[in-house]
């Protein structure tokens, strides 16, 4: 209520406004005052000082605005007292500001498109990704044209048709022809976009499987906050799993009663042969995650209790991408795009796309999920399941597997 008193007592206007602002931010102001008083004695640290600094700047700006406001008022009142026309034609001011905003805004859009637009993902590294990119470019062109045209009209009209006491607006309640045109034209443009989008979508998710050219199956299991990858082994089939079989040694709950599971291999990175179709089998252990590989234009949620599938063909190797992007450190990556808990922001895995030959050497070195511990657990003979694993996996015990899994957990 002291605020009211100050104003009614005709204290100077600027002071009143300053105090009002002070009252508004009294909590901050008090803190600021306390901080300022304490500053010489105790070292409050750079950042704390800077908070006060910004609050003071804000108060100063408020004061400045209040002074400007008051001087405008004084100016207008004096004009009025002298019987001259109104001091500031605000309609003209706003009309000009809109025109200015249009010009600066268009430049800003241009700047964004060129500067930030050049910082985006490189061209798609997968077959379907190219189609998505084309679709994107078409949509971008259409929407940019509409965006610029409508904004020129919006701010242009605001400028041209600003208020004038001499003019009367044009009474124009409707025009059915025009309305039909601007219903039908957007409808037609959207039909084109819908059709193209629909065909692209179908080509991504409805693939006819070529029996001679079966895609490479890879199973991905997500959990807080890591990805586990399972390669199908020599049989080319990822075996079944059952969440009820999950134990500390069998973290994915793989069912080794299924023969297809026994040669399944683990990997701490995803390695893909270039030019070969890959069928991802996506599953989740705990909550929903989203398997996202932006460079390949691949994203699909991993849902507990449900398998999801995404088939795609990488077209560029990591080495080629490194050349293309001029970045020797370039890596394809997997991210999590669906909120999944505190580690959501750091749930990554490297993807390496290599030549077919490199892939074959690499995959031969990977260990199977099945180890001696699990063999005992599933009553399987403690003997190599696949001949190629004999060289090392049986020699080393499960400890080696465990370290490997810990690396996986990273």
């Amino acid at each position, binding site marked *: 209520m002291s605020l009211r008193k100050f104003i009614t007592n005709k204290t100077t206007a600027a002071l009143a406004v300053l105090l009002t602002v002070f009252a508004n931010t009294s909590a901050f102001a008090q803190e600021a005052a306390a901080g300022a008083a304490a500053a010489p004695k105790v070292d409050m640290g750079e950042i704390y000082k800077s908070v006060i600094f910004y609050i003071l700047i*804000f108060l100063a700006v408020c004061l400045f605005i209040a002074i400007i406001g008051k001087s405008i008022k004084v100016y207008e009142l004096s004009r009025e007292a002298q019987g001259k026309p109104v001091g500031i034609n605000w309609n003209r001011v706003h009309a000009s500001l809109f025109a200015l905003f249009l010009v600066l805004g268009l430049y800003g859009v241009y700047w964004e498109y060129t500067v930030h637009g050049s910082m985006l993902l490189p061209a798609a590294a997968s077959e379907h990704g190219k189609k998505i990119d084309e679709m994107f470019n078409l949509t971008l062109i259409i929407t940019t044209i509409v965006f610029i045209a409508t904004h020129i009209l919006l701010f242009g009209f605001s400028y041209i048709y600003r208020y004038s006491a001499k003019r009367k607006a044009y009474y124009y309640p409707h025009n059915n022809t025009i309305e039909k045109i601007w219903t039908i034209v957007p409808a037609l443009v959207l039909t084109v976009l819908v059709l193209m989008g629909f065909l692209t979508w179908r080509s*991504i998710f409805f693939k006819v499987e070529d029996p001679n050219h079966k895609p490479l199956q890879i199973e991905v299991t997500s959990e807080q906050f890591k990805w586990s990858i399972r390669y199908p082994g020599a049989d080319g089939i990822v075996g079944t799993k059952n969440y009820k079989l999950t134990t500390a040694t069998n973290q994915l709950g793989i069912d080794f009663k299924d023969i297809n599971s026994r040669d399944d291999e683990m990997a701490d990175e995803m390695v893909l042969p270039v030019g070969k179709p890959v069928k991802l089998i996506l599953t989740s252990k705990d909550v929903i995650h989203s398997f996202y590989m*932006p460079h390949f234009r691949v994203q699909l949620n991993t849902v*507990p209790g*449900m398998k999801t599938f995404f088939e795609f063909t990488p077209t560029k190797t990591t080495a080629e991408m490194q050349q293309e992007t001029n970045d020797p450190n370039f890596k394809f990556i997997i991210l999590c795009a669906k909120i999944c808990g505190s580690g959501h922001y750091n749930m990554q895995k490297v993807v390496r796309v290599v030549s077919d030959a490199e892939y074959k050497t690499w995959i031969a070195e990977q260990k199977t999920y099945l180890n001696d511990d699990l063999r005992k657990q599933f009553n399987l003979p403690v003997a190599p399941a696949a001949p190629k694993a004999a060289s090392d996996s049986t020699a080393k015990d499960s400890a080696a597997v465990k370290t490997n899994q810990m690396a996986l957990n990273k």
Partner: protein
Amino acid sequence: MSTIALHDEHNHDHADHGHHKETLISKYIFSMDHKMIAKQFLITGIIMAVIAMGLSILFRIQLAWPDQNFPFLETFLGKWAEGGRIKPDFYLALVTIHGTIMVFFVLTAGLSGTFSNLLIPLQIGARDMASPFLNMLSYWFFFTACVIMMSSFFIQTGPASGGWTVYPPLSVVAKAMPGSGMGMTLWLISMVLFVASSLMGGINYVSTILNMRTKGMDLWKMPLPIWAFFLTAILGILSFPVLVAGVVLMVFDRSFGTSFYLSDIVMGTTILPNEGGSPILWQHLFWFLGHPEVYIVIMPALGISSEVISVNSRKPIFGYHAMVYSLIGITVLSFIVWGHHMFVTGMNPLLGGVFMITTLIIAVPSAVKTFNYLATLWRGNIRFTPAMLFAIGLVSFFISGGLTGIFLGNASLDINLHDTYFVVAHFHLVMGSAAIFGMLAGVYHWFPRMFGKMMNAKLGYLHFWLTFIAAYLVFFPLHFLGLDGVPRRYYAFTEFEFMKKWLTVNVFVTWAAIMAALAQVAFLFNFFYSIFKGKVAPQNPWEANTLEWTAPVEHIHGNWPGEIPTVYRWPYDYSKPGHDEDFIPQTVPFSQTMSSNLPHDFEGNAEAEKIQQDWELANPVEENKG
């Protein structure tokens, strides 16, 4: 057609708003007067908006300076920001509660609740809502929902933090994150109360509009905000119960061990017993509300801006019927597009294709509305009141955000854009900016009607320009982060090499957000100062046609002393040729405006047309039409 329904069952004195009979409690707290309830909704909405905006500044600080300590954060947040750095769990809580408050409490209750309550009786000519008691309950349920939601900041495990869409299993399994404990329970309770509030409000709005219009106010003479509120209320009534159903199932899953949304879950090595449910079910139920919800948010804003743009362009809204039909089109279509939030959730891809088609169709009525706004401005005589500035800002944001929606509605593009910053940018342009601007336009426009005082126009100008510029600076660059594949709800951009280049953009965006937040101080000061100290408002400050400006400035219970005015014409007779003023209120009969009547005005009433013709033949003859 109901006419002068004297809705006065509760013994209030009409002519006297006096303090003899009304106590402080019955006038300001448990009020059943729609105008007071509107104010309650508005002020609660503003308080919630300020809180939610504060939360957004907190997480923007984290995003901009992930490696720095801010001791003041620890002062405010205690253990959630130990050492002056927000913890990842609390970061997620911040984004979750920011979203929940903004979408439900600010943009649904604060916007629809305020203006439906204020304008429906005043613009259709009713003494009050159909059920004032239900209306009061609606506010108090909403208020309780707000209090419960905020109370979750004061519990050990913190507020719900699974995102405002609270997807299970993350939100159901308490082990998944701390926020899924007590905080989530409070979220669900709060949401049930909120939905109850929305339903009571919605039923009231619909029945008031259908039954209590004054004499002459047929549906096609209703101002566009009323159409918007009407259709919004229908949307809410039909979709909110589905959310409650979903919420109840979630409560069962969380507290009674059912498995509606859970199946095959292993937390670490603990195997949960739930079997047979599907997390996708929640998404269907949630988005069956969730998508209509975004239209519940934007349609009142569009209605308000239609009115404001027409009044301040001094021109009839272009294509009144087209505006109404496009609102109806949006209402109907919004029920069959929810799947576009689920293109990549593993839902059958066939459904994805269908939802893409329905989604992109909804762009057509939206485009019609935009073009009609532009056509209304064309050859207008535009007065840039603060409300008009915000309405123009709304159109700009609606265009920008609507166009980015065309990317996201396209299933194949959504593969790479889903859950990235592109989505964040998109819905902050349409909801966070356009709908908020509609709300602010409404506040500036109807403040004189609400409080009988004028707001300071110059502070309004300052508020608009700062907010308008800052909002674009905040949200435009975010699209590019999304196009680079940066997912949303990331606590820090430090763990991925490719995101580091966006850190400078994040700093810029945070400064722009702080600027936008500080600009709101101009509004808050203006708002609260003007309630007490503003200039007294004239009867019809904007020279508008609608009925609310015929009611006395001084609030009285029952809105009009004596009889409710009769309506003779549509609400958009601005700058009609032949009339001496540039507006003709709805209460002016055609007999008083013989010089400006058009054949179209008589809607095929042969007698009236003849009278008009006679009058035109014998020009200076004074005649009355029937």
